[in-house]
């Protein structure tokens, strides 16, 4: 098992892919470590929000992703 990471909006461009699979379990520090530095910097920024299994996290640094879960990295929406 692993943790799926979904990159939305321009984060997909920065990561070079729409999704990645990382070994789980994964916390906030582990996620940032596993990402390329420029992408990790962006994700750390206050404009990027984080969801776990489709639920927005109130405090993204509290991330605890178990094996088989899905993390979404959400930059500001640009509207429908």
């Amino acid at each position, binding site marked *: 098992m692993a943790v799926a990471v979904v990159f939305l909006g321009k984060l997909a461009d920065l990561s070079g892919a729409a999704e990645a699979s990382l070994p789980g379990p994964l916390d906030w520090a582990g996620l940032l470590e596993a990402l390329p530095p420029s992408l990790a910097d962006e994700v750390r920024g206050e404009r990027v929000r984080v969801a776990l299994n489709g639920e927005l996290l109130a405090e993204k640094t509290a991330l605890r992703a178990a094996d088989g879960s899905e993390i979404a990295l959400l930059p500001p929406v640009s*509207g429908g």
Partner: protein
Amino acid sequence: MRDVQLLAKGFSPGKALGLFAKAHPDAGGIASFVGKVRPEADVKVLELKAYPRMTLPGMEALAADVEARWTLDGLLIHHRHGVMRPGAPIVLVAAAARHRRDVIEAVDFAMDHLKSASWFWKREKRGDGWHWIEPREQDHADLSRWA
């Protein structure tokens, strides 16, 4: 009746609106809004990325909020994602109710929230490649009217 759909393919707003009207023969008023990709000089296509796992529940939650604020017989929210050409429909919102003000305000509210508080990310393909679109200040101003 609530009809909320996140659509991956092109759709006909006229047809959907016709079916909605037929489904609510007793409503005194039906208001609607159709938003399309605006033809702009240098824009070849528009892409709206969704994260369906959150985008669709977000649209459902918006519909529930609208229904809590206004007394409606029916509410329809259809929204595209994916790649669209200029002129293609992006969104259709329609509300049916006994009273005129309810349906017009409900559509107005739903559109303001879809435009600035829903899980969509937008980019345009121009002559020199793809460009991500940042949120518009005007959209946030529109949204704050309801606070």
